[in-house]
């Protein structure tokens, strides 16, 4: 189910890495990086976790900020991950 997620990892990484996470928004906060954006389904979320591990990034927190409904959900399935 499409939803907005926030993923926090240890270490600051540059915006260029957003390319690996379909353009999730990245903010660097005191030695951590916060990724926020739409995740289409659980498979995609697990794919992102795999990528973080492949890059040697330690996961601090993952949380769902809200499920997408109506038009937002439709839009999230149109393959436009980038904002």
């Amino acid at each position: 189910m499409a939803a907005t997620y926030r993923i926090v990892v240890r270490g600051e990484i540059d915006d260029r890495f957003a390319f690996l996470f379909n353009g999730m928004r990245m903010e660097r906060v005191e030695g951590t990086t916060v990724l926020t954006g739409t995740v289409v389904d659980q498979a995609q979320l697990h794919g992102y976790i795999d990528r973080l591990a492949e890059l040697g990034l330690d996961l601090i927190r993952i949380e769902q900020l809200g499920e997408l409904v109506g038009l937002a959900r439709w839009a999230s399935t149109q393959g436009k991950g980038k904002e």
Partner: protein
Amino acid sequence: MGVTLQTGGTPQQPARPPPLLMTKLHPPAGREQTVLRVRLVKRLQAPAGTKLTALAAPAGYGKTTLLGAWRELQAPQQPIGWLTIDEGDNDPAVLWSYVTAALAEACPELEARAIPDHIDAATIVDVVLPELINALAAFGPAALVLDDFHELTSGPARDSLAWFIDRVPSTFQLVIATRSEPGLSLGALRAHGELLELRAAELGFDATEATALLNDLLGLGLEREQVEALVERTEGWPAGIYLAALSLQAAPDRSELVSRFSGGNRHVVDFLVDEVLNHHDPDVQTLMLRSSILGRMCGPLCDAVLEQEGSAGRLRELARTNLFLVPLDDRGEWYRFHQLFAQLLRVELEHRDPGLAPTLHRRALAWHREHGTIEEALGHAFGAESVEEPPVRTGPTRGQADLSEREVVVLRMLTGPLSERDIGRELYLSHNTVHSHTRSIFRKLGASSRSEAIRKARSAGLI
């Protein structure tokens, strides 16, 4: 990491069942720039009664390198079979065919029978494994390394392995290297003192090992405090320390780089990828960045993708000085980048040349078409369309099983020697996306294994 690709340039028509890939039965060749980690090699001399030795740590902790070195040192005392697991081994018949082949290669006198094709999991546990256990008991001391064990997901293959571990003779040692929890009820083994575990904390470099790498092997001449700062900053992560070493090798002012690196908050990989790249000549940088879209590479393929000449020599030279470029054969022909490093290069490629990747995929596609390497050609066909993951639609109906176009592509690739992870790399999809395609294919075809899915799809004329 798993090397599951055949290394010839010839077209491969997979037989049914797929032939055994001999590259799975050997560790990557030892390289000059690696440190012999004596304390860890000693730890691997497990006390009597140890049934399972588990190395569990993320990518870049040197698990494969350590086990390769241990195997070489142990060889005179004890034969040690080697098997690099991939996704295809989730079929019990495939897994045990490879295990038997790996053991037979290390212990030619072992009386183990070949595994019949298409044998079911119950027969393996009831008939094949008891025979194998008896043969191992009669044989005497032996060990088997299963590298990339995380590729085994829950299911009959892993269950049969758990059954096997419970019953192996005390002279036999099973050693696994895995990125995630192996799912083998370690708790019970631990409680009985039958488990030896080496985890990230222990597999990380200490200052002595870092000194051996940075100063003794690479001659960087760092002060003790500088080495300690690097170890602290990377938390001993060997891949991070090696990235730092590559940056330092060409840095004009090493102490400046060390202090800039250890002072900042940027993640190790983010900080170092620029440094590593910028110290190479521009043509080598271009080669590294642009060949990062390739699952494996040789000189002529890189020449085609870069539209220039001389890649073969540059690859050979780079492999001599960079452990992240892994040779796949001993002829110096085929290579692949370490997964972590390839990922960093792809990020950098997209940053420096946004939108170039599809063009590179198109050139790789043309080369593979010409050379008949079908699975890889298909992979680049996807990359050529778009580097982003297109939405999965229920595509045009193909036959009664109603596979989408993308599922047909994944299914065709599954007939070859690639693991799901390799296919993901080729198609520019995450491992999980490929896995969910595979699950969907299995569901639609009513198949429970890769070989069954391929069989059914072929008889239905879907592929």
